[in-house]
């Protein structure tokens, strides 16, 4: 039966023939024209929490009349998706999420510099000198502790990084993996800055490793893990801890390390090759404004706002009372790949003592 051998060949031949016959379309080249809704409507890659993203886009549509939708994505996903479609990006603006991710996108040429007129109000330390991104909020890294769990363990609420090394806290600390989480990378870079070098920073993380229950993937997860009493202390941005307190995790308390702590700046940026650059710029102008920044506190997001005219809530951390380290975003962004690889190899994979 030679037919057995013939069939696959015929199949493949037919396949390619059919493929050709079906799809001969004169070369339309770039699909820009086929994009339904490509004109006059905006799509935001949003790095904040879902409810905040929704409020932001709704409010902008109300203010401007421009239909706006969003997809909630982590920084890594945003970069991956932008990177995969450089010429014809599906997003026009990236809003929210720590700017070390924006740094990665700038390096890959995915972001277009835009010096928004309203960015003039924002202090320089919250802006990229080359106008690639503008900061819209600030979060300080803190300890999110479960008081009930700590009481049971006989441990005081920590107020120093060294406190996290207490033997009584074995398996009682939750933090994220710095590779997946901007929050956890902030923790790691904070140690590097505080201790004067990558080796010294990793050395501290190595000691803390013995007390860590698990490295979560999401940066905010440690706060809720602590809130449910799974661990004593979670390392998160303090506004996340406040959010969980408000949602009913009453045992949570926020504290800050006295040696100094790191912080994030959440950004907004124009996506390169946006098909709606004019509308996108309008969105960015608006996102920087005090009105837009004030939306966060209506949905329980109490980040410190970068616009001096924005409202201050007593649920926000007063950055004057917290000792912030000198956080070099450019250096952190540049060191990230090698440093997280070292963390993964030298710490996360190691057995605990």
């Amino acid at each position: 039966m030679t037919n057995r051998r013939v069939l696959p060949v015929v199949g493949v031949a037919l396949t390619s023939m059919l493929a050709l016959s079906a799809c001969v379309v004169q070369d339309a080249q770039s699909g820009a024209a086929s994009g339904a809704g490509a004109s006059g409507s905006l799509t935001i890659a949003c790095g904040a929490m879902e409810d905040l993203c929704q409020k932001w886009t709704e409010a902008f549509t109300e203010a401007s009349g421009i239909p706006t939708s969003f997809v909630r994505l982590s920084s890594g996903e945003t970069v991956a998706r932008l990177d995969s479609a450089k010429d014809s990006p599906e997003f026009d603006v990236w809003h929210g999420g720590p700017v070390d991710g924006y740094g990665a996108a700038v390096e890959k040429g995915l972001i277009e510099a835009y010096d928004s007129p309203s960015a003039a109000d924002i202090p320089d330390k919250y802006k990229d000198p080359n106008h690639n991104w503008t900061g819209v909020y600030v979060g300080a890294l803190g300890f999110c502790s479960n008081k009930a769990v700590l009481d049971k363990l006989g441990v005081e609420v920590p107020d120093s990084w060294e406190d996290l090394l207490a033997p009584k806290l074995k398996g009682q600390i939750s933090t994220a993996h710095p590779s997946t989480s901007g929050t956890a990378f902030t923790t790691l870079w904070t140690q590097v800055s505080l201790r004067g070098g990558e080796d010294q920073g990793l050395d501290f993380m190595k000691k803390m490793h013995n007390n860590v229950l698990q490295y979560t993937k999401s940066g905010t997860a440690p706060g809720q893990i602590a809130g449910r009493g799974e661990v004593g202390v979670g390392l998160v941005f303090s506004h996340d801890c406040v959010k969980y307190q408000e949602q009913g995790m009453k045992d949570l308390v926020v504290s800050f390390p006295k040696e100094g702590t790191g912080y994030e700046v959440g950004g907004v940026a124009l996506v390169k090759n946006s098909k709606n650059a004019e509308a996108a710029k309008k969105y960015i102008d608006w996102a920087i404004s005090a009105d837009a920044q004030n939306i966060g506190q209506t949905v329980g997001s109490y980040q410190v706002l970068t616009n001096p005219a924005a409202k201050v809530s007593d649920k926000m951390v007063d950055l004057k009372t917290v000792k912030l380290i000198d956080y070099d975003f450019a250096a952190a962004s540049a060191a990230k790949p090698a440093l997280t690889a070292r963390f993964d190899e030298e710490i996360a994979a190691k057995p605990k003592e």
Partner: protein
Amino acid sequence: MSSAAPPRPAGAAPTRAPATTRTKVRQDPVTVIIVALVSLILFLLVLLPLGTVLARAFSPDGAAVLTGIFDTASHRAIIVNTLVLGIVVGTVGTVLGFFLAFVQARVDLPGKKILHLICLIPIVSPPFAVATSAITLFGRNGIISTQMLGQQWNIYGLSGLTLVLSLSFFPVAYMNMLGMLRNLDPAMEEAAASLGASPWTVFRSVTLPMLVPGFAASFLLLFVEAIADLANPLVIGGDFTVLASRAYIAVNGEYNTAAGSAYSLVLLVPALLVFLLQRYWASRSSAVTVTGKPTGRVRMVSALAARIPLGIVTAVLALFVVTIYATVIVGAFVNILGVDNTFTLKNFEYILSGIGNDAMIDTTVLALIATPIAGLLGMVVAWLVVVRLKASAGLMDFLGMLGLSVPGTVIGIGYLITYNKPLIIGRLQFLPALAGGSAVFGGALAIILVYVARSMPSGQRSGIASLQQVDKSIDEASTSLGASGLQTFTRVTLPLIRPAFIAGLTYAFARSMTTLSPIVFITTPRTKIMTSQILSEVDAGRFGNAFAFCTILIVIVMAVIGLTNVLVRDRSVTSQSRAGL
């Protein structure tokens, strides 16, 4: 996808094969066209996206990972973890599925209809439901572990993953084994029994060996599902890093799709090995049991000494599954389960106030479109593999299975980089942009394709498992009586494998509704998908909202499956009792 189906070339489609030849089954032009069509579909569904990703895996960044994969201790640990997880979950899930299927098919116990429903719950639940519920119940401050028993268990890691994944995936084994048990020809068992063998001896030396292909198929499916799963290692994996979660870290943490592709390439190796092993094994020991000839009656286990212990174990297992899902439902109606147990409707208010409505409708509609396509495609592929193709059967089987063997993240990235711009080769545009916000239908088509790619292989596997039991003479008889390949398939083969087909449909829908890892890369503003909404709720720590979402998702899937079974149910008594659905 069907819109991409090309018109037939002129004159190539006689509907009747000449009835003069003996069994020239493979010359049948209709079959040739089917093979061509299926090849094209599989190529577009899986091979092309996968090829794009693999090309990226061999780019400099990816190659660096590939060459160093065995050099570092942490990489070796990840590979070992992945294999261990696959083997443990494959074994535990298959045993669990077989046990419950056996009880269902062969043991005389009350309440088996309810048991059947309980066994189906996990396939209709989104990936996070079990993990989230398990943490709430058995975590460090769990309701059962700590608040009731005063224990501190560490559920994070292999133990928790085994629990959660076995519980999530055992229904695959259950459905598979149930179909087989009901298809087994009782004549052999009767013969053994009448020769004086005890029920236990009959079970061990007659029944079990006939089920070997089913065991192999279940183990394979569970193995690849377990190692490809992303959601559970992220939620409950602890420090037990596996290749899928490492690939996720590479893409989402290190912004390195090349490294992610490289890890995924490594992930393919064990999946392929198991796949080949299973083919080899199953081909050596398949038992032809559906002969089309009249059969005897199945002997039920009726001895009290066997029924009581079996009943107790079954009851405990069923109670466990019910508890896990009751937690999801209760969790949807309280503030923070285990922390603040006050009754509230705010979880539902939150998701129904706008964030969830679109997602519910979009997800359901897209899954409904994908389901029949996936179900039929799975059966056609199975039929081609087992009955029609010889030399290329393995290749076809392999192509079909790829959609499931490849981790969802890889599929997602593959679709993203392949289909987010028009497919242009030379000066010809083959396809418009399918994925992403600016694509046709707002990217919905890509999501349907992913649904089909991910859910079709399970239908294919169960179809193959049940077709391997069908005597080839039935097919040949039909052909030699003048039926074309298509007629034989629809009139003879399909009715024979109806239970597998319905199982395939059911599973395809549930699978589509609950798939996550490829979807997170191709959701667009205009097509919101429930699982990715649930992910963001779990991510944000709002377990209550996640539970509410899961509850609604489960209700939708249950309703559609119930409706399917009413609509597709066969009126004839024999197939009804065999399908048991």
